[in-house]
């Protein structure tokens, strides 16, 4: 029964006081700020008990005064701890797309509209353990960047974030859960490999064996295992010790189609998407005009940051034909 309750989303939503994910700014109402004593708080309570017993036993009037003042301090500390978190407004910021294997940088804006500052607020991403402590000034906004590892391509939801504080006396910990509606696009992990040949279809483009030409030297890049030894910049190797590969451009205007069909059939979908992602990066780096063909989707050739983002986005969100 209890177990069933613990997994029932309706119960959990009622219990936590919100229905995830939440859109827009989330104000931490009193209803969703929890508070319990810390271990230090229990030790404080024990200390008070000893002080009280001593005061009674020795009839120390000022001992009573001290004990009761400390008890009042504990109570005031509890209210102040809640105050440090309650009515804080949390809104998600933009999460820039990343490649799988990198860390998604989720931004949360903690908006303090009160006249008092709220020091030492911990934001912890529950799934990954990413955490950060920030001080939010009076009437100001603090930004929290949570670096969440992005393991797989696709749409990575932030998930549940805990906000916690023990300010001012460390005797209580108040915390609250938020689950803002924010995603990070995770591109497939790119695999570097030679670009496919430019399309030789009815458009009548000149057939070339290698798009990556041999004519005009355009720069150096890090050596990759598949590079031809003829292109290694041996002088640079002799100077700096790093293996560098000379890059040549034939024709900046060359147009290439990055086609699903050109990837090897025997590897899985994810690898094929990774290959395509690698091609997008390579083509973009070369300044070529490129288009993307996926089963059921086609992106017209183009170049530049927007084209790159569109293609990678399509690869990230590809879910079969």
């Amino acid at each position: 029964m209890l177990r069933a309750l613990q997994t029932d989303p309706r119960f959990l939503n009622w219990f936590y006081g919100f229905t995830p994910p939440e859109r827009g700014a989330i104000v931490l109402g009193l209803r969703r700020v929890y508070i319990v004593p810390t271990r230090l708080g229990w030790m404080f309570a024990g200390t008070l008990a000893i002080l009280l017993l001593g005061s009674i036993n020795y009839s120390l009037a000022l001992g009573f005064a001290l004990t009761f003042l400390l008890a009042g301090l504990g109570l005031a500390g509890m209210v102040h701890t809640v105050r440090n978190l309650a009515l804080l407004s949390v809104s998600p910021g933009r999460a820039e797309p990343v490649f799988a294997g990198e860390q998604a940088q989720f931004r949360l804006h903690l908006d303090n509209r009160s006249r008092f500052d709220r020091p030492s607020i911990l934001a912890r991403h529950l799934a990954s353990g990413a955490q950060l402590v920030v001080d939010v000034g009076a009437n100001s906004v603090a930004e929290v960047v949570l670096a969440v590892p992005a393991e797989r391509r696709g749409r990575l939801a932030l998930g549940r974030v805990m906000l916690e504080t023990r300010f001012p006396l460390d005797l209580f910990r108040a915390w609250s859960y938020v689950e803002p509606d924010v995603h990070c696009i995770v591109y497939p992990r790119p695999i570097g490999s030679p670009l496919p040949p430019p399309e030789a279809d009815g458009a009548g483009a000149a057939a070339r064996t290698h798009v990556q030409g041999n004519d005009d030297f355009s720069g150096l890049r890090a050596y990759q295992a598949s590079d031809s030894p003829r292109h290694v910049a041996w002088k640079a190797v002799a100077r700096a010790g790093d293996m560098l590969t000379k890059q040549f451009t034939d024709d900046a205007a060359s147009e290439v189609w990055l086609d699903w069909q050109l990837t090897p059939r025997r590897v899985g979908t994810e690898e094929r998407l990774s290959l395509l992602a690698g091609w997008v990066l390579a083509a973009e780096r070369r300044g070529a005009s490129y288009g993307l063909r996926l089963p059921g989707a086609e992106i017209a050739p183009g170049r530049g940051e927007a084209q790159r983002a569109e293609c990678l986005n399509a690869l990230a969100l590809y879910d079969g034909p």
Partner: protein
Amino acid sequence: MTAPHPLAPEVRLLTARDLAGLILALAIVAAPHALRAPWWLALLTLCLYGVRALVLVRRLALPGRGVLLLIAAAAMLGVWVEYHTIFGRVAGIVLLLLFSGLKLLETRTHRDASAVAFLCYFLIITNFLYTQNIAAALAMCVALAVITATVVGFSAPQRPLRANLRTAGLLLAHAAPVGLLLFLLFPRVQGPMWGLPQDAQSGITGLSDTMAPGDIAQLAQSDALAFRAEFTDRIPAPRQRYWRGPVLSNFDGRTWTAGQVHLAEAPPAPRGGVAYRYTVLLEPHQRHWLFALETPARRPPQANFSSDGHLLSASPVRNRLRYEMVSIADARPDAREDPLLLRLALRIPPGYNPKAMALAGEWRRAARDEDEVLARAIEFFRSGQFSYTLEPPLLGRDSVDEFLFSTRTGFCEHFSSAFVFLMRAAGLPARVVTGYQGGDPNPVDGILTVRQSDAHAWAEVFVAGRGWLRVDPTAAAVPGRVDAGLARAVSGSAALPFLMRPDFAWLRGMRYNWEAMVHKWNVWVLGYNPERQREFMSRFGMPNTDWKELAATLFAALGVFTASLVLWSLRRWARPDPVQAAWHRFCRKLGARGTVRAPHEGPRDYADRAARQAPAAGAAIRRIGELYIALRYGPAARADEIAELKRLVRTLRLA
């Protein structure tokens, strides 16, 4: 959850500011203890604080546990040599002082630092075993402010000190009403709840069976209640109020002791005099003796007379004891006495106080009889320009000589001790009687309250054929003591002639005010006991409250306070924007009719959609949308437009 919790106190390291706060707090709370502790231990503790500061400043390594244990063991040995125990209260408090230094020396994280803060609380409360005056209370407040500001700094290391001080002040301001409520309403029980440690009496002030110079002066500074007496018909005059306690007849040159006490038959009923009937409510003092007005004429149950004429209870007085007494004031004493006792009452240690011996010998030679010796002695004290002070100067080996011939300043124990010494030297049996003199009759209920500050010592001289005569040398030297009580009498002490000048009337006024304040403090703070708690509650129309009523009142009051504190903390400083409030109301109205605003939907689109869905109110809805956009995003909000928006939203009727 592998990463350490960044808010956990055990992972946060102590900063220089934290340490400075801790050392300051420790300095405040440890100072009174250090003044009482053996000098070497106070110095050692101070060094430990200093070493910890040095470690932080110079970035040295903290000493290992072995070093700390070694210091602790050596210091405990020292305490044992000093006090012959490491338990017991005095030794325990001294060790607490030492441990504060040792703990500071192993403090790395905020967890240890919090333990040091708790240690500070214990150092504060143990100081109250010695003194509970207004200064001690003020020192407590200062120490609490420092500790709280330091602790606030633990959880907000980046915050400026001023902000932390402000938070600490706010916390204490919120804590004070709670503390006051608890102080007034927490159901008080009368301690002790269990057997007090052996040396507990060192803190409880009361008469003891020994008397050295300075003892009673110290006792007289305590306003603790000794007993109350309720007289059935009339209260004796102040000069008759001698409450007899332990009688001291052994003298070793410095200290008077009771010697062996044996029980005796009830003495024959005194002849003559005035009889007083009264009931005594004696506060527990852990000793056997019971106090009675001189001369007691009846024996309470389970009590006996001692051979020197005071009352002894069968068991130590551990709880409040009530007994009925009859005493006869100004009675003629019994002229018979045990010759052995009289011989004992003549002994003086040889080789002490040669000047006093010579003076007594002179009296003896010049006087015709014992009465005349007595008269000369009393005259000596009356005309001797002695002054009476609560802070007598320290006396050396020949304490009587120094008091009589050089300092001439003392408290009742100096007077009685010197007088009895002179009498014995002159060959008259004499002894010191301790007890209380005076008492404060309450004009309202007529009950006489006797406090420790009324503690007194006087003398008894045996004159052949007349018996033991009471002589109060203090009264002879300082007549005000007996008629007007201690406070007036001490006004004649060293500092006062200055204050007595007429041009310092305002200063005297201040002094009276201060004394009145101290009295209030004694009555309402230090003397706040179950009885006074009931008295307090009856002022609010709750007579005879029991602990349940108190607890209920307390919880109700605390609940109201906490609720208002929470409301205070959640109050919105900024008033909600009227435009925004009207818009939200508009959205709620439409939402209730099924037109919920989508998150991406702007005000214009939403208003258009709503207007299409409710054509009857379409114009109003569109106007609301326009007004909202103009007011929210336009250059400056106009009051009439705000009013129109509010009116439109209020009057909006959806079919």
